[in-house]
Structure formats: C-alpha cells, structure tokens
C-alpha cells in the first residue's frame, strides 16, 4: 500500500466531506464535518512530509492539527452558542439543485484543471484538481447560503482547499511562510466569528439578505 495511493484516496474522501459540510443544515453537525475534513487534511500533510522528507512539513501537520481540528471547530461551536443559531436559514437553492451544481463544478474542474495549470511535473499531480474543487465548493457555499455563520464555515472550507494546494506544491517553502499564512487564515476566521456575534447582538439577525442596507 504505497503512500501515493493512500494520498490520492484521502484527497478523494475530502471531496465527499466538503459536499457534506455545505449540505448539512444544522450548524453544529456541519462544523463536526469540517473537523473531520481538517483531520484528513492533516493526515495528507503528514503523508507529504513522509514522502518528501521535509522536516518542517511535520511542523505544518502539527500546527494544522491543533488549529484546524481543535481550535476552529471549538470557536465555531462557541459562536453558535453565543448567537443561539440552531440551524441554518432555508437557503434559496433547493437541495437537488445545489447537489447538481456541486457535481457539475467537480466534474468541470477535473476536466479543465490540467489545461489551466500546466504543472504536470510536480510531485503530487492529483492534489491540484482536488484543492481547486475544495476551493470552488467553498465559494459556491458562500454564494448560495444566507446564514452568516454558514458563510464563515464555507470560508474555512475554502481555506482548507488553498492550504492543500499550497502544501502539495510549495512544500519546500521556508517555515515563516507557513506560519504567516496559517495565522492569517485563523485570524480571519476568529474575527469573522466575533463580528457574527456582534451582528447578532446589534442587528438582531444573521441573514445576509437583510444585512444589505448599503446600496448604490
């Protein structure tokens, strides 16, 4: 069972978990799904570390484990309790339509990614389309969901995609880069959650359709 096959298998599971994160209505369970996905991501990082023998990849897996698997879901649940939001506001798109769109995104990205990103000769060719899929699904989630907290979750999901892309291609970059990018991602998520709580407290709702007073 060589590591490359294991790497590809784990990445494909991540695609399934990403669809789960977007579709699950209940905020608490979708953050759990996010925790699962981050765990798989960290496993991927460790595999890359083993394969390339880069010592600081281990550091990267450790930090992503601590932050993505423990810290962010904890913060998310804390925010869910503070704002009292049980489940998501009914999204505009019905279930089947969003499933269909996500499927279309996945398939189209797998087809066009080789022509757009001619990085065939990199060590992990398979991870590029997968990270793109994660990224686009995250964006699609933010587009189609009304609840602010759900948008934050989709943002974290998108960050996972970016980090996978980063790790699989720029695994030889110095440590300062990884620390910087990771802190930025986490800081953005924490700030967004804090603002979501303030919004709930001040504006009374987390529905972004109602939060659109600034026009023209």
């Amino acid at each position: 069972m060589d590591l490359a096959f294991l790497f590809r298998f784990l990445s494909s599971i991540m695609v399934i978990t990403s669809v789960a994160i977007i579709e699950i209505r209940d905020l608490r369970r979708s953050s759990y799904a996010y925790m699962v996905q981050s765990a798989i991501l960290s496993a991927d990082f460790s595999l890359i570390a083993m394969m390339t023998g880069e010592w600081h990849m281990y550091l990267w897996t450790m930090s992503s484990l601590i932050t993505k698997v423990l810290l962010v879901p904890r913060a998310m649940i804390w925010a869910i309790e503070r704002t009292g939001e049980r489940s998501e506001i009914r999204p505009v798109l019905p279930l089947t339509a969003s499933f269909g769109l996500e499927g279309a995104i996945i398939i189209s990205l797998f087809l066009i990614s080789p022509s757009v990103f001619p990085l065939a000769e990199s060590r992990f060719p398979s991870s590029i389309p997968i990270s793109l899929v994660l990224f686009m699904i995250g964006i699609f989630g933010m587009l189609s969901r009304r609840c602010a907290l759900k948008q934050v979750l989709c943002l974290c999901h998108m960050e996972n995609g970016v980090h996978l892309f980063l790790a699989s291609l720029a695994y030889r970059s110095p440590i300062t880069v990884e620390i910087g990018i990771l802190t930025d991602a986490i800081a953005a998520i924490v700030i967004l959650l804090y603002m979501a709580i303030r919004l709930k407290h001040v504006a009374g709702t987390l529905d972004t359709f109602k939060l659109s007073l600034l026009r023209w």
Partner: protein
Amino acid sequence: MIPVLMSLSPLVGSLLSLFLGRRQREICCILSSLISLILATTAFISVKAEPELFLSGEIILDGLGALTAFLISLIVLLASVYSPRYMNLEEGKHRTYYFLLQLFNFTMLSVCISNNIFLIWVFVEATTLSSVFLVTIRGDPTSLEAGWKYVLLCTVGLSIALFGTVMLYVEALERVGESGILWTELIKNKNILNVKAMETAVIFIIAGYGVKAGLFPFHWWLPDTYSEAPTPVSSVLSGVLINCSFLAIARFYLLSPSGVASSLLLLLGIISALFGSIAMIGQANMKRLLAYSSVENMGIACIGLGAGGVGIMFSIFHVFNHGLLKSAAFLSWGGVEKSNKAEVPPSVAFSLILSFILLGGCPPSGIFLSELGVLTSVVRNVLLAVAYLISVFTSFSVLSYNAMERGLGRPAGGNSSPIWIVPLISSAMSIAIGLYPSPLLRVIEEFLGGAS
C-alpha cells in the same frame, strides 16, 4: 537596518499604547508615526538604483518601496494628528482605535519592504484584518455590515492571489532554485522564466490584488467601507491601503510584462476608470463619491501600468499623488462634517474646495501632470484615449461641482478648530510636486531602470 526600524516603530507604539492613559495614548500614537515618518524620509533620500537587502534577503529597500513607505507614514501621521480632535470615543473603543491604527501602519509599512513573495501576501492580508475593527468602530448595523463585506470579499480575493503566488513560486523553484522565493532573484533572471506558466500566475495575482486595489469587477466592498468608516480611517484606507496592493501588482507585473497581462491591466483599468467616474455623478453621500473616485484613479494607474514604457513611471507617480490628495479630500470633508450643518467655517471650506479641485486634476496639482503623462503613453490608441479623456473630464467636473456645492453657499461661521491645517499640508505638498516633480520622477526612473 532603517527599513526594519521604520516598520517596527509603529508596532512598538501600538503595543505600548495598550497600557497608557487616554491622553498619553494619543501622544504615543503620534510619536510612533512621527518616528516612522522620519525613518521613511531618511530611507527615501538614501535609496539607490540597486535595491539593498537586509536580514538575508527578506527585507528590501528600493525606489518603489521607499516611495510608498514615505507616503504611508505621512498619511498615517496626518490621520493620527487629526483623529484625537475628530473622534470622541469612550474608553474601550479609544484603546482599540489607537492600538489598531498603529498596527495597521505597521502592516502597511512591512508590505512595502518585504522581499519574499509569500510575505507580501501575508502582510497584505494582515492589513485587511487589522483595519476591520477600525471600520466597524462605530458599532451600528451598517458599519458592521460594511466590515463584514470588507473582510469576506478581501479574504476570498486574496486567496486567489495566493493561488497565483504559489504557481509563481513553483515556476521559480524549477528555474531559479531555492532562492526563487525572493523578488529580487526573480527580477534578476526574469527572462529565463517560462512565459506560459508566468502568464497564468500573473493573471491570478492581478485579479487577487485587484480586489484589494479596487479595480472594477472586484471593487464592490470599497464604497461601503469608505462611507461607513470614520473619516481619518477612511482617509488612510483610501489614501494608502490601495497603494500597497498597487505596489504588489506593480512588483509582480514587472516580472513578466507580457502581452496578455498588459492587455488585461489595460482592460481592467479603462473599465474601472469609466465606471468610477460615471458612478460618481449621481452620488449624494460625499464619502461614497470619493470612494468611486478612488476606483477611477486606480483604473487610470492600471492603464498607465498596462500601457508600459513611460506609462509605468507616470502610473506610480499618479498613485503617489492620488494618495496625498485623496487623504486631503477626506480630512477636509471631515472638517465640514464636524461643523454643524448650518454653516461652514471659511478655512474648512477653503481647504475642501482646494483639495477637491486638485484631486480632480486642476493644473497646479501633481495629478494633472501624472494624468497627462499617462495620457501621452496611451494616446496612440485613439479609442482608449477618448474613453480616458471622458473619465478624466467627468470626474473633474463632478468633484469640482460637489466642492462648490458644499463649500460655498452656507454663511461663514462655526468653530473653525485648527484641524483644517492638516489637509492643507498634503494639498500644499501636492502642489509643490505638481510644480517641481523631478526628484520623485528620478527615483521612480532609477527603480524602473533597475527592475527592467
């Protein structure tokens, strides 16, 4: 070591201000930005054609960086001198305001001096995060909504830029090897980089940083953020924040000024110039009007960048002038907001009219020169020149109409507290540059000489 000290002094100032009393906090904020201004001017004066490297290549001091750093520290100093008199915040907000203002200053200065392509991304992202709570300091639903949009849109945009940077890095790794992460290495042997891969990377970078710079299809967060933020913050945001992202775009564009990237910049530039100026026409809220004027001016800068040759020099010069005058316009508008609606103190009215007309591009101002320079670089293609002229004339007439509408007409009165001197400093500096631009142009030329 000057650039490192220059960026660290606001960081130290911000941390210090957490533990001080109300008055001392304001003074500490002003002091730290003053120190960073002095260091920035010494760096600007001592800058040479060849970029100097510090801390094993991580920190760089070249023409473009020094110029933007000087502008940033100047504008933040003006804002920090302006805000004690303008803002009346209770204790909690007062502390966060001054802490974040200096932190914001630190992040922007470090963008100018960072040589590592990833660190540029990290610090630009940090500028967004540090300025969010400055925007939502007022705490009412609209400012929170503006902050929400600001963070979400900028983070998503910048992640696109991250994609581009990673692709660039992979390409550099192959061609240049380990040290490919440093911008100076890349610029030295940019001709051996594979053109095809570079193109897609630069496209993604332009799109990504374009979100922060406020180019047309990505600018939607700009008007809401500027109109909701308190005036000194929006003067810093509009004056210098978009300069940082423009600096990033310029640095990466200079790596591969290929056909596709330059035509993309020209396309985005002309659309944002036209959109910005026409969107300004019907605006009632003055700050939104100035926001759309920022979109328009960034469009003009991108046109200059895309046109290449002398256009690049004048676009950098234009962004510098625009920073000066946009913050002057916002600060003088703050003066008008401060005086009660019935009457406008004559000194504030004078600084408002002066800064708005100069921002529009009236002859003595630097913007007139840079707009003329960008026009000469784009004058070959008649269609582009005509669209460019339309946008420049519309923005000039709308800005001067609004200046006259709000400056004149109300009887002179009200307390003209001395804060109106602050915007006058930057307007006077812009007039001086307009009449005698050669030292600035020399620095930019040396930088461009080194880079190309």
